[in-house]
């Protein structure tokens, strides 16, 4: 009987702890992905400004450089642009964003920023594209700072909080 109880108690504490860890990892993942997005945009800016690389090639290059949830957006957009199914760069970007967004740790505000980035992507000269990328990067940095603050507030709480919650449930049930 007590063995069952022990196993049960262990399971409760373990699962509550894991759930907490999961939530904590979300808080640490989001700023990291926002950082990765800014790095990617920096590369895109260089490709556009100095090499005038066409978007399919530039996006593919960025997509291949990393293997994160974020770089998959770039790969998907490149694939859509190359599919010759009549997508403009903006359409390819928002489609890729919708397909791949679920796999990232980003939230609704980030989505809005990325969505706006697709408007008019590739449809103007280099200076305009540069401005657009700079603006998006600025927004992303703001989001990153916000995410960083949330992380500091919440990451530790959830990492240990899950286990504490599990223990308190066990104590209540005992």
């Amino acid at each position, binding site marked *: 009987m007590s063995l069952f109880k022990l196993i049960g108690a262990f399971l409760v504490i373990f699962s509550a702890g894991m759930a907490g860890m999961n939530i904590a990892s979300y808080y640490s993942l989001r700023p990291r992905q926002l950082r990765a997005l800014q790095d990617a945009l920096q590369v895109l800016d260089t490709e*556009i400004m100095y090499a*005038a*690389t*066409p*978007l*399919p090639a*530039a996006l593919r290059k960025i997509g291949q450089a990393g293997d994160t949830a974020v770089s998959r957006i770039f790969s998907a957009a490149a694939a859509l*642009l190359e599919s*010759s*199914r*009549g*997508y*403009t*760069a*903006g359409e*390819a970007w928002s489609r890729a964003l919708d397909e791949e967004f679920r796999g990232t740790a980003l939230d609704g505000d980030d989505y809005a920023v990325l969505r706006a980035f697709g408007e008019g*992507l*590739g*449809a*103007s*000269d*280099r200076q*305009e*594209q540069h401005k657009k990328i700079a603006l998006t990067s600025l927004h992303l940095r703001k989001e990153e700072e916000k995410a960083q603050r949330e992380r500091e507030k919440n990451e530790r709480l959830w990492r240990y909080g899950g286990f504490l919650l599990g223990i308190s449930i066990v104590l209540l049930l005992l």
Partner: protein
Amino acid sequence: MPSLMESGICQILPLVAPALKAIFERLPSFIVEGLEEIRLRRERPLAVRYHQEECFLNIRGEPVYTPSEAYMVSEEDILKTLQLISQGSLYAYEEELRQGFITLPGGHRVGLAGRAVLDGGVLKTMRDISSLNIRIARAVPGAARQLLPFILDFQEKRPYHTLLVSPPRAGKTTILRDLVRSLSYGLPALNFPGLSVGVVDERSELAACFQGVPQHDLGPRVDVLDCCPKAVGMVMLLRSMAPQVIATDEIGRSEDVAALWEMVNTGVSILATAHASCWEEMEQRPYLRELIEQRVFRRYVFLSRRKGPGTLEGVWDENKRLLRGVNVSV
């Protein structure tokens, strides 16, 4: 006509706005076969040119002849088409926008017109593009065959300095391209060896390079200097590639003529084209007149559209004597 479809309009279809694509997919085959130009003008009827005829198209892809019945090209059609043509990267085509045309895979060309943006009096770029003219490239192997015996110097084993003369769209470039191809392959039937040919392709029309690769077959012995100004390019090619023949399109400016003077006595043969429809018109252009008076070119080939593009009107020598035996199209 699946084979024709594949060569011409099929390469264009993925590059036009979906609304236009739907129209072109329903084009009757007699238009598809002879399609030369597609004209998109903002808020204006969609027009095509085929077999030297022009018509508007309605939304079902049928030819109509009154503008009010035709499909009106919207601003979005133009913007989308531009995006698709530029692979969603208009910024990568700044030089092309300055020049006023973009070369597509397959050698097709898109002419552009819109609002020019000047910077210190120099054309910087083009904005608000309102007209697109898609010209379907069609290689015509053998187009220059009947000409060849008259412009080859069999003793020296090289062609004479030759100028191809015609009004616009009469097949100058097509014939020049075929001349280059024939010379580069060599002519076993005439016992004429292949020559190495340098092509200065200022407007990317002759070789129609797409990302540096010629889209037209120009034979095994061709070096292409793409997008390079003719005057600089000819001198550069002469030094760097040691060609036996240099081919270039549309001479007529003072610097072209100055560069030609440098070329004529270096042992390299020159093939060039010029816009004019007759001797009188040519002689009214100061730089061309100078070339004629100094007998720089040994052969003048006149072309017209009288019997379709590439109609041969005759071949003259430097003394303005019509060469006999040329099989003139009648």
